[in-house]
């Protein structure tokens, strides 16, 4: 068994530098790599390009990196709910590339799976397709979208083992599996880090081969963005 376990977030993030491109798992504030984000704030790396479906809120998630002006460019599908983001974007400090959510997922998966590009119908006929190659297959139009190239992918899983195998919980899965192995180095933080042999090989969501470093996250706030309930 190839051991991917590192002592903690500090060792896990070795090698991060200014001006790198990072992927972050998560949808809204669910399933985000909280510990890695917090440590990136501490490290103070700047000029970052961040690929993430969302950009957090003002005081949580990627919003923390935005507050410190560490992000140069965001590649996301939806960036609402973040005042500081809006301010930086409107002032031109922050470069924002908005792309369809399915395209974002598949450009990650393409990088993971060794595909250079994909043809997707999403965005055809819209400004998202401007300047991009389009093509007809069977009477339907598609846009050519390229695999992402990233230096680090930061993902968050529920359980993991020392071999790097990951299991997610609920919708906290989202983009995390698609980003594993999609960057040069994939760092997984987990709520529970188990010795090998504890996870059922039939029930692994992401095989360890896609993960370079795994650590037990010290703190998971798991903040809820929209608490909706019904009466009993």
């Amino acid at each position, binding site marked *: 068994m190839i051991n991917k376990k590192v002592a903690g977030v500090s060792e896990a993030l070795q090698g991060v530098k200014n001006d790198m491109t990072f992927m972050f798992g998560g*949808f809204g504030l669910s399933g985000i790599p909280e510990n890695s984000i917090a440590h990136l704030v501490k490290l103070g790396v700047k000029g970052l390009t961040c690929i993430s479906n969302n950009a957090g809120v003002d005081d949580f998630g990627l919003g923390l990196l935005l507050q410190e002006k560490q992000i140069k460019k965001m590649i996301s*599908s939806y960036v609402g709910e973040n005042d500081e983001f809006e301010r930086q974007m*409107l002032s031109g400090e922050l470069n924002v590339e908005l792309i369809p*959510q399915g395209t974002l*997922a598949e450009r990650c998966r393409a990088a993971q799976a060794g595909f250079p590009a994909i043809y997707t119908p999403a965005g055809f006929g819209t400004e998202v397709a401007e300047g991009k190659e389009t093509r007809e297959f069977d009477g339907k139009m598609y846009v050519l979208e390229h695999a992402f190239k990233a230096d680090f992918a930061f993902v968050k899983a529920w359980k993991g083992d020392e071999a790097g195998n990951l299991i997610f919980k*609920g919708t906290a899965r*989202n983009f995390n599996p698609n980003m594993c192995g999609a960057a040069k180095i994939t760092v997984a933080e987990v709520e529970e880090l188990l010795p090998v042999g504890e996870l059922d090989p039939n029930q692994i969501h992401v095989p360890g081969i896609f993960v370079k470093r795994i650590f037990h996250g010290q703190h998971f706030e798991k903040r809820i963005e929209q608490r*909706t309930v*019904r*009466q009993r």
Partner: protein
Amino acid sequence: MLDKNGIAKRIAKEVQDGFYVNLGIGIPTLVANYVRDDIEVEFQSENGVLGMGPFPFEGEEDADIINAGKQTITTLPGASFFDSSTSFSMIRGQHVDLTILGAMEVSEGGDIANWKIPGKMVKGMGGAMDLVASAENIIVAMMHTNKRGASKLLKKCSLPLTGVSCVKKIVTNLAVLEVTDNGFKLLERAPGVSVDDIKSATEGTLIIEGDVPEMAL
């Protein structure tokens, strides 16, 4: 004239037994409340869940179980969780039978604009572009006119498009309309709304054939 719940109620009648349905944020979300009890429907949310149930009871919210609107939800027996790539495989592969979403503008050719107002804050398209580019069966739920009273059913959209030639049906506070090769065909009037009311609120080509029935809710 319908309110938002009325629009949702009318759209719910379009949901058929055995349908997998993706509901957008806003009025579409309300549709789930009005689907008949005697048919089987499963709701998909693009962040990675099939078989969504109602909101959780207070104290039972789970940060790890949310919908695409980031709201805490529950799941029903038979539900499944999956990654984003698989979720959009369901959408792009046309396994989702019906997509209901809001819009800022719809053109008589079925184009839709619902993600961006130039000069204003842009929040992003989320999964909407994938949904409209892929779905065979798209119903738009919206008010017939905007806050300034201008028609949202246009000859041509003025806002940046989300998708082209994709909308099949529109349910507004005033009417049910079908997008045809020749324009918006008026299918039903909302209770208390006249054909003339609809005419004056529709900028795009409106096709009226014979008597237009009032919708049954």
